[in-house]
């Protein structure tokens, strides 16, 4: 999981989330100018996109899509 939803009605195409994502998870649709989740598996749930979105359009959950190997 990680990033779970981008509300396209709120997204204003500012590209901030695309720029800020450290793992290249998001893209901006060239035609609609709306952000979308392109690589869900690579989201590390850092919440930066949710925190920085000026439209409050993004929702994240801190559960990883990838299995995390544990120390024990």
């Amino acid at each position, binding site marked *: 999981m990680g990033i779970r939803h981008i509300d396209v009605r709120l997204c204003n195409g500012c590209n901030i989330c695309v720029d800020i994502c450290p793992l*290249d998870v998001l893209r901006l649709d060239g035609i609609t100018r709306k952000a979308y989740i392109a690589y869900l598996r690579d989201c590390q749930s850092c919440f930066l996109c949710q*925190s920085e979105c000026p439209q409050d359009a993004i929702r994240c959950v*801190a*559960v990883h899509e990838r299995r995390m*190997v*544990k*120390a*024990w």
Partner: protein
Amino acid sequence: MSGADNNDAPTNVMPARYDIGPGMNKFVGEGGRLINAKGERFMEKYNPTLKERAGLRFLAFAFCLEAQQGNAPLFMDMTHLTPEQIRRLKDVLPLAMKMFESVGLVANERFTQPVEWMPMATLGRPGLVVNRRFEATLQGLFACGEACSPQAVPTGLASAATSGATAGKSAAEFACSGASPSLDEEQVKQLREEAYKPLQRSYGIEPDQILLAIQEAVIPYNVLLLRHGERMRRALQAVEDIRDNQLPMLRAYDPHYLRIAHEVRNLALVAELHLRMALARTESRVLLREDFPYEDNENWLKWVVARQDNGRVKLITRDVPLQSYPYQVERTKNLNHMWQLAQKLGIVNVEKGEIQWA
């Protein structure tokens, strides 16, 4: 790889399943208590004075001892914190607290249950040997943050920022100082072909598979935190298998996955360096070995340095320049003080120069 420095590296403990590095001190500072699967506040046993405020490597060792005694998983218990403390945590660690809230660990300004915590060996990493200008031993290569060896940059945002500022300035000075570099077009062509190879394959192994395999080899606590030659050799075999049989089959669907393919290549190299250097250090110093439990100041006041030699890793040692230190170290060999503690608590015995679990 121009010369990556040693294995005497910092360790860390952090919430399991959440990518939260910073924050440990704040959670502890507000009164977080480390408990084991039985609900015991185990740091009272290992460090009655400092408890959770003990140093990170001490905490990591305590985690290993608890796991070894069958008391894992381990948790940070913050259920007793007040709403005011939770608000303070939200101010200082907003992203971490958002993560906890998103999965219900924090609700109505309270922690609802203890948070699983685990030690991380992945932060005890090797790094490039740099001078005070943050210049590596390969001319024209500069490094900052945790790309440097732990002697230059232990960990953390502050040293990442200061080393980054210095390295950037040094790199700019270097770029302005010399003539334009001459390019070997043939070499450029070869490097480009190599870099894009995963993109050109129509079948092959996903980077995700290799990432998981590397993690399974090195993340268990008893590989790089609580060390034994036999276990590390097994992990090294797994990493060498990845290097020789899986990396050549890497496949990338697009430039996004090409970047990840190169990252897993680098991770495999770092894992190999880490294991080789840890195997070379036949003593217990910052991190502990069961098969070499003594802190050996007779033979091991030195760093292990890895260098590239015909595409393979070559290890050398370099003496720590003790003559320039204001205080001299006694050249003795004693049971490492953390193993002494474990022995005193009746958790281990030392037999024939090796640790035996009681």
